[in-house]
């Protein structure tokens, strides 16, 4: 029996009553003080998520995507961290909340599924207890009710013989099973928003497909909002409604999924798409590399962070960082010389003439940029 708590618990409106977006992030900044200086892991990120929708956040290592998730939830490690900006969940500001208050949010409103289930699950506690723990403390179920719910949860995530599994330890399960258990734990208290941080990286591709399908179906059943963080564009291609591409702590392109692939604007996104080896391509196709390395976040270059590696780079890019501007109602990007525009095409052509390595790499194997389209820009233009 849960003891009545003395402090007032935070109230959130129910899903049905919710008007407006489920999650709003406004100009979120998160920086760490390290020996090398101030590392701006998240440098001004804003987006909205409606309930029932899935947002994919794509980026490579160092892009800030994991820190973004942790920052949204308020799960950052203690220490020298600077955080600013607003995070609104179901209409309510949550970023000024203290850790104690946030405990009412974690689990019951927002839940996180981690990348590596082996280190995210407690290795010396049985699975059953790990699931029922939150059910008993947060929702207040008694032991039998919690156990019933746990069995139902395990069944809903597709684990066979759930009653037997409750008594197992994490190391007795396979990787795919552990990930399912983690999802069950995350969903135990019925959160509205599920944040999945690289949930399938490291799993076999056949298991990966199962887990992603599971997440999608659970999300639809419960009309949760979901944020799927990954480095793999293929994973988000079929399973998200919108995608945010991150680079060096910022969102550099944000679009509805089909838009992102069909009408890519940001050269980084385009380069990323071209660098992936595809099954449809013949063997020994020369891959179009992105030369160079991601920037050092403690010492970012002036101007656009992608400029040193960009095929479309011009002088302006190196001194002025481009703002996010619109290319349609749900398509934002940050580039002075975007893909598919006449400025972009000219920039690429002149870079090719000058034999800039990034341009040469992009244009190799006969690839040409798509025909220039006029940008439909609504405000925020040059």
């Amino acid at each position, binding site marked *: 029996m849960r003891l009545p708590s003395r402090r007032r618990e935070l109230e959130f409106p129910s899903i049905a009553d919710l008007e407006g977006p489920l999650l709003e992030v406004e100009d979120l900044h998160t920086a760490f003080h390290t020996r090398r200086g101030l590392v701006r892991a998240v440098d001004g990120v804003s987006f909205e998520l409606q309930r029932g929708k899935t947002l994919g956040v794509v980026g490579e290592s160092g892009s800030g995507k994991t820190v973004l998730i942790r920052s949204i939830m308020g799960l950052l490690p203690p220490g020298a961290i600077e955080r600013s900006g607003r995070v609104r969940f179901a209409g309510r500001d949550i970023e000024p909340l203290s850790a104690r208050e946030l405990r009412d949010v974690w689990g019951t409103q927002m839940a996180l599924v981690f990348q590596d289930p082996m280190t995210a699950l407690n290795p010396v506690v049985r699975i059953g207890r790990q699931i029922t723990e939150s059910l008993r403390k947060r929702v207040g179920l008694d032991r039998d009710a919690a156990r019933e719910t746990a069995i139902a949860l395990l069944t809903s995530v597709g684990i066979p013989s759930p009653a037997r599994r409750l008594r197992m330890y994490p190391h007795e399960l396979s990787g795919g099973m552990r990930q399912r258990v983690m999802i069950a734990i995350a969903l135990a208290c019925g959160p509205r928003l599920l944040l999945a941080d690289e949930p399938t990286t490291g799993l076999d591709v056949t298991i990966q497909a199962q887990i992603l399908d599971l997440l999608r179906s659970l999300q639809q059943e419960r009309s949760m909002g979901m944020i799927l963080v990954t480095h793999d564009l293929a994973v988000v291609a079929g399973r998200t409604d919108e995608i945010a591409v991150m680079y060096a702590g910022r969102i550099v392109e944000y679009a509805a999924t089909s838009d992102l692939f069909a009408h890519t604007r940001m050269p980084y996104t385009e380069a990323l798409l071209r660098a*992936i080896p595809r099954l449809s391509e013949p063997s020994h196709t020369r891959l179009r590399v992105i030369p160079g390395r991601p920037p050092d976040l403690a010492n970012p270059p002036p101007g656009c962070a992608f400029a040193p590696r960009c095929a479309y780079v011009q002088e302006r890019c190196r001194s002025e960082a481009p703002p996010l501007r619109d290319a349609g109602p749900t398509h934002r990007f940050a580039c002075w010389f975007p893909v598919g525009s006449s400025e972009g095409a000219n920039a690429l052509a002149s870079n090719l003439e000058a034999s800039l390595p990034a341009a040469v790499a992009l244009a190799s194997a006969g690839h040409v940029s798509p025909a220039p389209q006029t940008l439909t820009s609504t405000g925020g233009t040059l």
Partner: protein
Amino acid sequence: MAGSGTAHLRTGEALLRADNLVVEFGTGERRVRAVSDVSFDVLRGETLGLVGESGCGKSTTGRAVALVQPLKSGRVCLEDTDMAQIPKRELRTARTKVQMVFQDPISSLNPRRKVLDSVMEPLAVWGMGTKDERRKKAGECLESVGVDPDQTGRRIPTELSGGQCQRVSIARALMLEPKLLICDEPVSALDVSVQAQILNLLQDLKEERHLTVLFIAHDLAVVKNVSDRVAVMYLGKLCEVAPPEELYLDPAHPYTAALLASIPEPDPEVPLKSVPLSGDLPSPTDPPSGCRFRTRCPRAAERCAVEEPVIREVSPGHFVACHFSLQPSSGNGSGDKTTATPSPTRGAPGEVIKKV
């Protein structure tokens, strides 16, 4: 599945030939046959891609072929010389012909040694040249992989990025001018943009130095990109061996087909396929009898539990180990193939014999 058999071995100049490799770990009840009677060959100048999911034994096979993993039985032949039969000193010399590149770039290098020293080490082991000559050669090697020997060479591995460490690893592997390069998941731990760089680099180096490559990975798209021939493994056995185009267009083995179907395409227009494989990998200490894949195979039938399939040719150059292999869509191959439709006793598609 469970590929025993040697139908896919070719006559001709094989740089590497592995015959009936068996590798076991552990003792007693916890004994695991990581590699169970696997044979293959790699011709000179060819890249063989070895693909499979975790626990299939591909890394162990790679190490066995690199002569750093002792075999329980079977033999490894380099340039027609059986590695088990030659005296120890010659074995040591033979090692220089085969070098490895590993998955985790940072732990492939000694963390307490400067990168340049690590690259010089192979020559130092053999006492080749003076220290200055070694340094010079190491510097050249580092440059050929795109690493600056003066700036980056002085650092220790923890100060470098994953991509840089992997380049250094490759440079070190090339110092002894090997003929065969075994790459064990060389790009799995790297970002996409760096991955492409390393793959192109490997391709360039292979051409420049006339290398033969055994490329081990779990990412099918990567393997297709680099290979001339692809072998698919499952739970210690070979499933299918074929040229990449054919394997990907026309997989003959149900496991290969399932694997291909599970790969997400970075294209939202391509519809998601329903999950073709259910269940989890069976425990390697107690693999299923007969064909090891039968517990998850939509085509499994009684025969599969009793008889282990033997590798056979289903179309020119395309070999598979399955009793009920998928019909190749383009014509019938030569050879003895019994591609009977599976009897619907148990094993209706999707219903698997659960082994928990």
